[in-house]
C-alpha cells in the first residue's frame, strides 16, 4: 500500500508539473523561446488567490477567477513589453530578458508581501477518500489536481486541433513566415499562446500551493525549473510530451524521495533526465530534427 500511495502522490505532483510544462512547451513551440519567467507567473497566481481569499475574505471561486484573469493579462503584458521588441533576434537575448522579468516579478512581490513565507489555505473543498479500509488515503487536492490535469490536457488538444486559433498556432510553430503569408496574425497568435500558458500557470500555482502550503516570492522558481525539465523530458514543443514528462518526473521525484534519499531526490530526477536525453536526444515524444547543410 505504501508504494501505491507514493505512486498516487507522485502522479499528483507530476500533474502540477505537467500543467506548468504545458505553458513552457507551448511558448517554446510557437515563440521559440525559453520563458524563464513562467515559474514566477505561477507564484503571482498563488499570491492573487492568497490576497483575495485569505486576506480580503472573498469567496474561493472569485479568487480563482481573479487569479486566472490577472495571470493571463500579466502573461500578455510581459510578452508585449519585454519579449516582442526582441522578436527575431538572438534567442539568448530573449532568454536573458526573461531572466530579468523573473527577477522583476520576484522582487516586486517581495516588496509588497515581504520575504516571509505565507501559509496558503487549500482552495479545494473536496474531502479525501479513504480506500482499502483506511490503508490508502487520497486527499481531495490529489483528486482535483489529477482531474484538472486531464481536463486541461484534453481541452488543450481539442483547442489546438479543432479550432481556427489552434490551427493558427500549429502553423506559426511550423513556419512563422509561411504562416504570416497565409494571413495569420503572428503577433496575436503568440499573445494568445502566452495568455493560455499564463492562465494555466495560475491554475498550477493554486494546485501546487494547496498541496504544499508555503508561499514565498521564490515559490515558483524550483517547480518552474522542474517543469521546464519535464517539458524537455517529454520533447519540448509537444503537448502530450509535456504531460508524460511532467507525470514521469513527479513519480520519479516522489519515489526517489521515499525509497532512496530525501536529500538526493533532485539529483535523481536530473540524472534520469540526462539518461533519457542521451538515449533520445530530443526527448520522449520529440521530433527528430534533420540537419540541413
Amino acid at each position, binding site marked *: 500500500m505504501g508504494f501505491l500511495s507514493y505512486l498516487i502522490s507522485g502522479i499528483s505532483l507530476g500533474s502540477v508539473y505537467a500543467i506548468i510544462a504545458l505553458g513552457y512547451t507551448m511558448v517554446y513551440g510557437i515563440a521559440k523561446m525559453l520563458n524563464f519567467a513562467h515559474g514566477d507567473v505561477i507564484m503571482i497566481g498563488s499570491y492573487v488567490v492568497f490576497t483575495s481569499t485569505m486576506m480580503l475574505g472573498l469567496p474561493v471561486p472569485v479568487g480563482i477567477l481573479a487569479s486566472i484573469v490577472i495571470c493571463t493579462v500579466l502573461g500578455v503584458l510581459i510578452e508585449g513589453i519585454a519579449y516582442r521588441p526582441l522578436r527575431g533576434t538572438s534567442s539568448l537575448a530573449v532568454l*536573458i530578458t526573461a531572466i530579468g522579468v523573473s527577477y*522583476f516579478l520576484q*522582487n516586486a512581490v517581495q516588496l509588497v508581501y515581504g520575504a516571509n513565507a505565507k501559509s496558503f489555505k487549500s482552495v479545494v473543498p473536496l474531502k479525501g477518500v479513504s480506500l482499502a479500509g483506511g490503508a490508502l488515503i487520497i486527499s481531495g487536492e490529489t483528486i482535483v489536481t489529477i482531474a484538472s490535469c486531464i481536463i486541461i490536457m484534453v481541452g488543450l488538444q481539442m483547442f489546438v486541433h479543432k479550432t481556427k486559433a489552434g490551427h493558427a498556432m500549429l502553423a506559426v510553430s511550423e513556419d512563422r513566415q509561411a504562416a504570416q503569408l497565409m494571413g495569420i496574425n503572428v503577433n496575436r497568435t503568440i499573445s494568445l499562446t502566452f495568455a493560455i500558458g499564463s492562465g494555466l500557470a495560475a491554475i498550477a500555482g493554486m494546485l501546487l500551493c494547496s498541496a504544499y502550503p508555503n508561499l514565498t516570492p521564490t515559490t515558483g522558481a524550483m517547480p518552474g*525549473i522542474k517543469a521546464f*525539465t519535464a517539458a524537455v523530458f517529454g520533447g519540448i514543443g509537444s503537448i502530450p510530451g509535456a504531460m508524460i514528462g511532467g507525470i514521469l518526473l513527479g513519480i520519479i521525484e516522489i519515489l526517489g524521495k521515499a525509497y532512496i534519499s530525501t536529500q538526493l531526490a*533532485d539529483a535523481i530526477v536530473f540524472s534520469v533526465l540526462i539518461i533519457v536525453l542521451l538515449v533520445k536526444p530530443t526527448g520522449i515524444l520529440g521530433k527528430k530534427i534533420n540537419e540541413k547543410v
Partner: protein
Amino acid sequence: MKFMKNMNKTTRQNMITYAMVILAYIIFQTLSVTGNLSSLMQGLLVPLCTYSILAVSLNLTVGVLGELSLGHAGFMCIGAFSSAFFTACTKDIITNDLLRFMIAFLIAAVCAGIFGILIGIPVLRLQGDYLAIVTLAFGEIIKNIINAMYVGLDENGFHFSLKDSMSLNMTENGRIIIKGAQGITGTARQSNFTIGIILLLLTLVIVLNLMNSRSGRAIMSIRDNRIAAESVGIDITKYKIMAFAISASLAGLAGCLYAHNLSSLTALPKNFGYNMSIMILVYVVLGGMANMRGSVIAAVVLTMIPELLREIGEYRMLIYAVIMIVMMIFNWSPKVKTWREAHSLKDVFHKRNVKEAK
C-alpha cells in the same frame, strides 16, 4: 606609439584588455591602501575578480564554442569544494601558506577540468536547448550531491557517506571535513585582491591566446558552421571537449578563489545553483559574445549596481531587474537598432566632417 602600431589588431586589442585590468588594479589598490575605499567596496574586490573569471571562462563555452551552458556554477562548486577540502586536509602538513594555496588552485583547476571532460563527453553530443537543460541538470546534481556528502578523516584514512555524520564510523580522533549541508567550515581566508587580479590576468591570457591559436580558430569554425568544419577535417568532438574542459577548469579556479574568501563554505542554491549559472550567463550576454573585455566590464558593472543602489534600499533589486530588461532591449531590439543608427552621434560628427571637407 610606434610599438603599438606595429602590432596586429588582435594583439593590440588584447593588450588594451590587459592594461585595463592592471589599471583597475592599480587604482583600487591605491585607494584601498590610502584608506579611501569604503569597507563595502573592500569586501567586493575579490568577488569582482571571481565573477570576472567566471564570466570570461563561460564566454569560452557560450561565445567562442557557441554552446549554451547553464551549469557553469557546478564547475565552480567542484573547484571550491575540492580546493577547500585540500586546504582543510593539509592544514598541518604543508605549513607554507602560499605554497598550499597555489597547490589548492592547481587541484581546483584539475578537478573541475576532469569533471568538465567527464560531463562534456555525453553533453556535447546534444544540441541547442537540450544541451542547455542537461548542463543545468548536471549543475544541480553536483550541488545536490555535495550538499548530502559527509567526508571525515582519521588514522584509518578517509571515510565517506551520503547519509549523515554518524554513518562515517570514525575513530575518536577523526574529524569531519565536509559536513553535509553545513559544508566546509574553518577555511583560512587567504584570497586577496592581488591574487584575484593575477588569476584574472592568467584566465584572460589563456582564453585570449587560445582564441588566437589554431585550436581556437577550429573551435570558432565549429560555432560558425559545424558541418562545414567537420567536412574540412576538424575533429569536432575533440575541440568541443577541449573548450568545455578549459572553461570548466577556469571556473574551478574561480571557485577556489571564492572558497578561500569565506570562512565557511556551503553549497546553497544562491551561490552554486542555477541562479548563479544564469547570473554568469547574463554577464556574458551583456558583455558580448566572444568579447572577453566586455565580459569583465559587464561582470564588474552588474556586481556593483546592486551594491551602489543599496542607498535606495529595498527597491534596488527591482531597479536592477528593470535595468537588465532595458539594457537587453536597447542592445538587441531591431527597432531600437535602426533608431540608434539614425540618431547616432558618429553620424553627426561624420556629416560635419564631410561638410568641412567640401
